């Protein structure tokens, strides 16, 4: 029998329905793979007992012929999602004993559809990072290596565990969250597919909040079809999140293989940033050519406020984080550092419980919201955000169906290589992804090629609000042309 962990989610679904193997065998194969891949540090908690129990229940359903859409398919869950009776930490020391008594809506939707939980995946602390190096549980090591080298590389972040686990066949798919690029950037750096759907498509209820007006959940998968299958289950209206929209969830899988003839694809000149690696530029042009060959029309467009997206993000996101993370006070849950008086207890708890990047962002957020600075920073950033969204609205009003951009300005870098002196160096990783969060649009990253050093590179497609279907159709065309990329196993 072929290795069950190397199947796509769609192939595994087919195999289970044909009874070629059982859900229990499929889960077991993944549990073994996870154990053998602990050097990657992708999982911060393995849940083998839960996986086996869920797989047995799935086998019963499969036998009796009432299989649900994801029956028996083993998935990993980013540690930002609250999972009932299973430790959920956001990879922060301040929550490292937290065991929720409730389940996030997105993960509940996956279990409702029959999926099997393998464990909780590593991420940057509170999803603040672009390399998965800020996790309290230590960095994730990418399954990818440069040609002929064994330097440990980052998988990207913040959903680094999700990306690495999918790339290394440690699950068939995984959940992620994306506030400034945290699904698309690690997907690109590990050669997998990741989509951040339109803001409001998935419920944020039960996801540890970072920046509420930017956070959105989405899937990681090894191909576009699998991502479409997972998003259909994850999405949907939830009265517990007032920003989650009440509109039907299409069968995204139907979009796979649909013609893209006549689609108008925008290429924004502002994304041709100074100092962009020539191989990134070449890949971008190649991707556009592939779409053109499939019948799409390429149109140069302008998004004039693009260069202000990252600065606006680094005001809005820390401001919202400083408010959201005020709840970690050592009183109701999480870590408490002892002190004789209550303010000192708060201050010691938060100094001990938060890592340096989180402390830094809370402090910047506190500053930009403080009396006398609110108008100059936060209010201005929210106005710039309106302009960034307006740029996209004007482009879509010209008839553009989607835009194509690189996902990242470079391939994966080494552990400890970036951001140690100046935090801004790390932030520049999200230069192509962050506009999408600010405007609330859907964006998908699809693997499109390898760098000269043999590392995966991705292309991003940005769509109209709630038109993820067009993104799946376009991404599938790129995937067909580029082929798949998987790391050589060294672990």
């Amino acid at each position, binding site marked *: 029998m072929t290795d069950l962990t190397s199947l796509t989610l769609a192939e595994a679904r087919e195999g289970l329905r044909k009874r070629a193997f059982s859900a229990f065998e499929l889960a077991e194969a993944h549990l073994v793979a996870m154990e053998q891949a602990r050097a990657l540090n992708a999982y911060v908690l393995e849940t083998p007992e839960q996986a086996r129990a869920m797989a047995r229940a799935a086998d019963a359903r499969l036998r009796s012929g009432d299989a649900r859409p994801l029956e028996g398919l083993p998935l990993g869950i980013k540690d930002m999602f609250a999972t009932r009776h299973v430790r959920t930490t956001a990879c922060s020391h301040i929550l490292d004993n937290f065991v929720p008594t409730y389940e996030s809506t997105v993960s509940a939707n996956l279990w409702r559809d029959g999926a099997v939980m393998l464990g909780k995946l590593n991420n940057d602390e509170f999803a603040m990072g672009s390399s998965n190096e800020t996790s309290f549980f230590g960095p994730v090591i990418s399954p990818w290596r440069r040609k002929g080298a064994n330097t440990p590389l980052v998988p990207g972040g913040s959903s680094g565990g999700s990306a690495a686990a999918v790339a290394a066949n440690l699950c068939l798919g995984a959940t992620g969250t994306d506030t400034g690029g945290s699904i698309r950037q690690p997907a690109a750096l590990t050669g997998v597919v990741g989509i951040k759907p339109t803001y409001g498509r998935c419920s944020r209820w039960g996801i540890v909040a970072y920046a509420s007006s930017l956070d959105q959940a989405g899937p990681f998968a090894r191909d576009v079809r699998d991502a479409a299958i997972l998003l259909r289950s994850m999405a949907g209206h939830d009265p517990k999140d007032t920003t989650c929209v009440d509109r039907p969830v299409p069968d995204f899988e139907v979009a796979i293989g649909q013609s893209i003839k006549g689609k108008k694809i925008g290429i924004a000149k502002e994304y041709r940033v100074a100092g962009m690696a020539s191989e990134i530029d070449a890949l971008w042009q190649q991707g556009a050519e592939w779409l053109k060959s499939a019948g799409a029309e390429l149109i140069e467009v302008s998004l004039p406020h693009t260069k202000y997206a990252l600065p606006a993000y680094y005001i809005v996101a820390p401001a919202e984080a400083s408010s959201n993370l005020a709840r970690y006070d050592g009183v109701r849950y999480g870590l408490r550092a002892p002190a004789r008086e209550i303010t000192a207890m708060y201050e010691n708890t938060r100094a001990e419980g938060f890592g340096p990047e989180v402390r830094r962002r809370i402090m910047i957020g506190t500053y930009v919201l403080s009396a006398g*600075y609110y108008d100059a920073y936060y209010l201005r950033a929210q106005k710039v955000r309106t302009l960034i969204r307006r740029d996209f609205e004007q482009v879509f009003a010209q008839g553009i169906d989607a835009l194509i951009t690189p996902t990242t300005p470079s391939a994966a870098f080494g552990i400890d290589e970036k951001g140690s002196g*100046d935090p801004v160096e790390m932030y520049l990783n999200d230069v192509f992804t962050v506009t999408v969060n600010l405007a609330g649009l859907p964006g998908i990253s699809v693997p499109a090629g390898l760098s000269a050093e043999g590392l995966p590179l991705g292309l991003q497609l940005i769509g109209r609000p709630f038109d993820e279907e067009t993104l799946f159709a376009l991404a599938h065309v790129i995937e067909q042309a580029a082929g798949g990329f998987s790391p050589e196993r060294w672990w």
Partner: protein
Amino acid sequence: MSVDAETVRRIAHLARIAVSDAEVEHLEGELNAMLAFVEQLAEVDVTNVEPMTSVTPMEMKKRADAVTDGGIPDDIVKNAPAMEDHFFVVPKVVE
């Protein structure tokens, strides 16, 4: 705009994060690097631009003002670092 050591201490206190003297200098540099980075926003003309308040243009959803959850005190205090009879226990607040 930039921050000095005194401002760093004031922000840290507002954020309820204890900082040591040794950390202040380091934080001052990092926060100023971030502030220098966001400084470019000052050059954008935002005259007559409304700040974004809703990401997806939609009417605010409302629900009936009814109790839909509750009666789970055990669950609520389950993760508390210190608890007595369904109460959270904290250090003395009032002298």
